């Protein structure tokens, strides 16, 4: 990474080998599907190779040199996550395979003991399926009720509905995204957390689209559970984090039983290991957790404020240009300050897959589909949308290629 006053993309672009790819008819790849997963810098790729070449070993259970090195490196990632997010107690950080598993862990290990018939769990219309389906399973199983906070025409949460739900006094948990993966809307998370605390409800924040893109200070946020995935922030797939307050974790039953999560096992009973190991049964994803540290280092070096500013600039630029493309409908806040680097859009009467196919020919990778957010699609009254999402290496020239391609779509479909 070069460090100058150059734009962020210029500084870091050469660290990402895949961005040199040519696709389709020898077109430069324009990767705008970063909300799905980001590309990986050479530092992360090297870290994983280095691990397998030089250190590979199981962790926590042996005293030989490699095991010690691996265990140490695994725990270094935990401390780096703690520092990155201002978490004081690193034992509150549980490694899981992704945001989805983190949320499911809470739904099982906390939900089954704390949510009963007559209770209410609240989620929102702009959640990813991973923050809806686990709560459907929980509420259906326990006889509790699942309620939603709807969104307004700008794609923002109607918080007065949250007030109404909380006023029933029956809400046990509110599960909300920090940033919507479809609309990009940034939730006023401090406000939501305060409302929950005042009402005595627990709050889980799905930070899958927040942690990669802006400074998140979990230590001062005040929520109860926070989840995110490494692969959306330059890291490997198969690694995610559940953070939860220690008192909660201590009182929760384990999520899975097996090796590592135990202290002593007898024929009929077992005592649990300390946190965080109580929730990390079995051999974890050692290699990927270890190389996740390289991704955190990379982002730390850039600085999360710079990441956010770069995305604001690109989003502003793109929104302005897109608003001039014929027949294009943009969803969400349409305000770079109020949204992450994510823009969802449709062409009037053109199916998103046709859009994606046409622009894919120019090497532009966007996502079209329901983005695992069918509740939101229903609200928007569409089957699917197109979504362009940016990251640190995205350039204005790439946005220009996107815009040109969108103009082609308008032309092909005679809009």
């Amino acid at each position, binding site marked *: 990474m070069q460090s100058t006053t150059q734009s962020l993309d210029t500084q870091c672009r050469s660290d990402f080998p895949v961005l040199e790819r040519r696709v389709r008819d020898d077109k430069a790849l324009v990767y705008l599907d970063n909300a799905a997963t980001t590309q990986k810098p050479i530092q992360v790729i090297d870290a994983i190779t280095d691990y397998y070449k030089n250190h590979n070993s199981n962790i926590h259970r042996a005293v030989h040199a490699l095991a010690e090195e691996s265990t140490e490196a695994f725990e270094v990632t935990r401390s780096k996550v703690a520092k990155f997010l201002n978490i004081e107690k690193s034992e509150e950080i549980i490694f899981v395979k992704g945001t989805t598993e983190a949320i499911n862990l809470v739904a099982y290990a906390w939900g089954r003991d704390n949510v009963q018939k007559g209770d209410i769990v609240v989620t929102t219309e702009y959640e990813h399926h991973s923050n809806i389906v686990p709560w459907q399973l929980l509420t259906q199983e326990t006889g509790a009720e699942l309620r939603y906070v709807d969104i307004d025409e700008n794609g923002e949460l109607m918080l007065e509905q949250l007030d109404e739900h909380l006023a029933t006094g029956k809400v046990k948990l509110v599960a909300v995204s920090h940033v919507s993966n479809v609309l990009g809307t940034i939730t006023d998370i401090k406000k939501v957390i305060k409302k929950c605390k005042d009402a005595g409800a627990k709050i889980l924040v799905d930070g899958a689209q927040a942690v990669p893109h802006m400074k998140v200070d979990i230590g001062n946020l005040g929520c109860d559970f926070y989840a995110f995935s490494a692969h959306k922030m330059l890291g490997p797939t198969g690694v995610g984090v559940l953070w939860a307050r220690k008192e909660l974790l201590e009182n929760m039953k384990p999520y899975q039983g097996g090796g590592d999560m135990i202290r002593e096992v007898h024929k009929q009973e077992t005592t649990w290991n300390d946190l965080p190991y109580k929730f990390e049964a079995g051999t974890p994803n050692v290699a990927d957790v270890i190389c996740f540290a390289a991704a955190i280092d990379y982002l730390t070096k850039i600085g999360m404020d710079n990441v956010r500013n770069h995305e604001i600039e690109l989003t502003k630029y793109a929104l302005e240009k897109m608003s001039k493309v014929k027949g294009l409908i943009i969803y969400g806040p349409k305000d770079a300050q109020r949204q992450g680097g994510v823009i969802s859009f449709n062409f009037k009467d053109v199916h998103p897959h046709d859009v994606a196919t*046409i622009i894919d020919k120019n090497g532009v990778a966007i996502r079209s589909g329901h983005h695992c957010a069918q509740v939101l699609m229903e609200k928007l009254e569409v089957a699917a949308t197109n979504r362009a999402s940016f990251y640190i290496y995205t350039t204005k020239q790439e946005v220009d290629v996107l815009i040109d391609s969108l103009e082609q779509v308008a032309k*092909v*479909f005679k809009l």
Partner: protein
Amino acid sequence: MSGDPIYTEMIIEYSRNPSNFGKIENPQIHRHDSNPLCGDSIDLYVNVDGTKITDVKFDGKGCAICMACTSVLTEMIQNKTLDEVKNFQKDELLAELGLEHLIKTSPVRIKCALLSLKALKYGIYSYFTEKMNDVKAAGNLKEEAASLY
């Protein structure tokens, strides 16, 4: 962008004005099918008189490829016998719209193109097995439908 291998005038035209779009109340054959990944979702309705198809309609939502292919399929099978339709091959349908190349070039979009044919094959299979109690006539339609893409 003239000469786009997929988005020809004909496909765009069909996507805007699909043929046989609508619903048949209480049809003899009804099959709903969807492509979960891209969100194409159609309902195919067919009426038969003995073994001859007398009416075909479809409704639903989908991309231009799905709308065009479904339109063309409904046109092609109108007034055909079930036996003729049973053996209908995917190449015939794709050729009608110049989309044969999708089989090779786009494993993703081929699903959009063949969704209606899959629905049709399953629909006829159910008609034979459930309404006519004629497993023999159904042949291996089900396997064929399942292996279309």
